[in-house]
């Protein structure tokens, strides 16, 4: 099975390195399509069990059965990186996939977001996730499915609510610095001493210890906050929350750099294939055909699509950048940007027009989409909107009251809208079951008035 070397792997790697691709070694494994499907659903080969994955799995299964999805490869960054290839791929497809994987490996070793997370988490997410899964299994044995599921329901619901600008292993808030005890200076000491012992006055009442407000400033890392400040959280529950948070840290760069990353890998598979003089010509033609199947704007025969294929967009952007700014600049951009900077800074009018990108609006419950007037900035923001804040609304902890009540606030000014009340209430119910004190959330309703949702009061 797995470690049979892929054809032309050695040659392709040598070629990639000669073009300056810089990556950790990659272990290629050929696995059955059923396994590919699971890696695609879970994001990792072995991951914690949760029923919501079961739902995604069924959707994926249906897609697969209907022939709508064929997954060629899944790459897991790390040192070594892991690449899973469907063992049903044809040989020519695998030539392309090998080159594609090397592009991803280069990206994940050099891009800042990826680097930062991997430096903190270690380079072995596959093993770590398997370890988390094992610990969950033990927790289920020890505490029962219901109890563990309560924690997982909450943890996965808040999966996106992390703060990647903070450290993965982030300490609790520092306590208020002790009131500065200024060393009494010679001339004030005498007076203060006498003042403190004025005849006839009782000793000054000891000042109540001042507590730093928790959190000291609005906190958006909800998983971290609950793990460290929930009033009655058990140790094993904290472990689960932090394990989910760790995996979220791993997934965040993948989410935030999808266009760049897929584009970069597509650029390199095309480029390496073009330069691969060692390939027999019929293999080459076949591989190029596979390339154009993957990197194309429309599905099937359609000439218009209401979605943008990130492979296609990223691929075209990188070609554009390399053509205009050169490879060195491209590598610098690859290392320092995420999709926001990538699209905002490098998608210019010429390229956007050439790709035929357009913005559209749909009415609620409407069946039709109306093409909007062409405006590059609006188009970019519309393209990036689903990617803001890990794809989730901004919800912050504002206050933890003395009685343990957790007060959350949605930043509706930033999100430009309020929350969907029904789903928010459900999430608060998940949270309440582990926070174990009242949980209150402020948002706005459809009329722009304040909406208050509370669970457990």
């Amino acid at each position, binding site marked *: 099975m797995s470690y049979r070397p892929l054809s032309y792997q050695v040659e392709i790697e040598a070629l990639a390195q000669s073009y300056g691709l810089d990556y950790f070694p990659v272990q290629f494994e050929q696995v059955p399509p059923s396994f590919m499907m699971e890696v695609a659903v879970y994001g990792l080969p072995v991951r914690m069990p949760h*029923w919501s994955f079961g*739902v995604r*799995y069924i*959707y994926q299964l249906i897609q697969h059965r209907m022939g709508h999805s064929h997954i060629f490869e899944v790459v897991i960054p790390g040192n070594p990186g892991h690449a899973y290839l469907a063992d049903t791929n044809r040989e020519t497809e695998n030539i392309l996939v090998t080159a594609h994987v090397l592009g991803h490996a280069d990206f994940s070793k050099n891009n800042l977001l990826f680097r930062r997370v991997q430096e903190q988490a270690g380079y072995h997410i596959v093993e770590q996730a398997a370890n988390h899964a094992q610990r969950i299994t033990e927790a289920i044995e020890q505490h029962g499915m219901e109890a563990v599921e309560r924690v997982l329901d909450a943890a996965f*619901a808040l999966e996106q609510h992390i703060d990647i600008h903070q450290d993965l292993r982030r300490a609790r808030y520092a306590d208020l610095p002790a009131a500065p005890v200024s060393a009494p200076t010679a001339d004030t000491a005498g007076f203060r001493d006498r003042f403190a012992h004025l005849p006839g006055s009782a000793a000054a009442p000891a000042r109540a210890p001042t507590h730093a407000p928790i959190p000291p400033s609005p906190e958006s890392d909800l998983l971290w906050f609950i793990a460290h400040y929930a009033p009655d959280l058990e140790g094993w529950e904290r472990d689960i929350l932090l394990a989910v948070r760790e995996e979220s840290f791993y997934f965040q760069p993948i989410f935030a750099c999808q266009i760049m990353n897929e584009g970069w890998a597509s650029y390199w598979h095309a480029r390496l294939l073009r330069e691969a003089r060692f390939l027999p010509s019929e293999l080459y033609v076949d591989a190029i055909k596979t390339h154009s199947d993957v990197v194309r704007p429309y599905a099937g025969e359609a000439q*218009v699509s209401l979605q943008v294929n990130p492979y296609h967009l990223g691929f075209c952007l990188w070609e554009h950048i390399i053509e205009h700014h050169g490879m060195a600049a491209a590598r610098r951009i690859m290392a320092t940007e995420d999709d926001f900077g990538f699209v905002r800074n490098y998608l210019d009018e010429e390229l956007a027009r050439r790709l035929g990108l357009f913005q559209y609006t749909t009415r609620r419950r*409407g069946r039709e989409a109306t093409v*909007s007037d062409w405006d590059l900035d609006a188009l970019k923001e519309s393209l990036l909107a689903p990617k803001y804040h890990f794809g989730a609304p901004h919800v912050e902890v504002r206050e933890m009251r003395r009685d343990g009540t957790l007060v959350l606030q949605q930043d509706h000014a930033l999100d430009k*809208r309020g929350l969907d009340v029904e789903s*928010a209430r459900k999430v608060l119910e998940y949270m309440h079951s582990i926070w174990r004190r009242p949980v209150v959330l402020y948002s706005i309703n459809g009329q722009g008035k304040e909406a208050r949702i509370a669970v457990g009061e």
Partner: protein
Amino acid sequence: MPDHHEHLWYDLFSRGARDWLRHNAKIRASVREQLPRLIAEADILSTDANRRVRMPVRFLEHHRFKLSRDQEQSGVGQGKVKPGDTLGSPAPQPGTGEESGGGNDQGGVEFVVEMKVDEIVDWIWEELKLPELEPRASSVLHEEEWAREGWDKRGARARLDRRRTMKEAIKRRAVQPAPAAPFTNDDLRYRQLKKRPKPNTQAVVLFGLDASSSMGERERVLAKTFFFWALQGVRRRYSQLEAVFIGHTVEAWEFSEEEFFQVSGQGGTVASTCYRKALEIIQNRYPPAQYNIYFFYASDGENFQDDHPHAVESLQQLADLANYCGYVEVASPSPMQRYLETSRVFDEAIPDPQQGARFSLTQEEDIWEAIRTFFGVHSQAA
């Protein structure tokens, strides 16, 4: 950490299937909570043959914070268009990884949960906290049987237990000094028999249905649904259960199960014919000494005045033979139209609530209350 080198571990175990099964288990639990409502809606009786109920259920949704939907949504597409063009609706994008599939306005995908009727009945018993039915310890029951019980050193040759005897011999030789006799009379063990009252695991349920013209379609459906669950309730306890179906107008006939609910007669109601028919069937086919007998009668409550003494008399006889008699009055929702005659007959003939009870059924949701009334009361008696 999985070991890639030793096994194709992923061939043996599907995480997706595991989590899908867990999802389904949760679905079943949530179905269970709404069971009475779902069953009232589902077409249970037509699926009686395979004893399964099919119910449409939605996928569970794992909720996250999400923004309220705006009147207008915008997106980005690609292709040759000009501003103002209208295009078909964007294809939904299920299972793209980050978002769990559901959450659109259409309310997600439905699928069908199939449950065994037995399973549902178990739940109902649990849910309604009904005690198990007990076979009646009736004075009529004097059937006895021989049962094996213990061993003795004396007995008929045919009942010699060789294995047991051998064991005894080995034990004895183990403690006796060297040349011990291979067998002695003391080693012999014989199986003993004792007379015991024969436990009664057979049962028969007799259903009586008023098929007169005053019973409308709605009343029949109610009666049918109630009968179905009553039958399941009895079936839960008895391994061998037979059902008898009697329909009557001014005369009574026995029917097959299929015919039973289709029967529609003309004319009035003489309930005593039904009770007599039941008595006759019991006497001919189900000796009360060997059968636990349950009788359920459904009617709209109407009965000929003249029939009153006959009905009371025959019902009394029936109640004496049966473990339990139940009467459901499938009444019209408006109290004005109720006939109370049959209820009077039951109250007069069966004053003891442990022998029988009656319940007035006006809508499907009442069926659970009816089941609770009959099976709850009855079991306390046992």
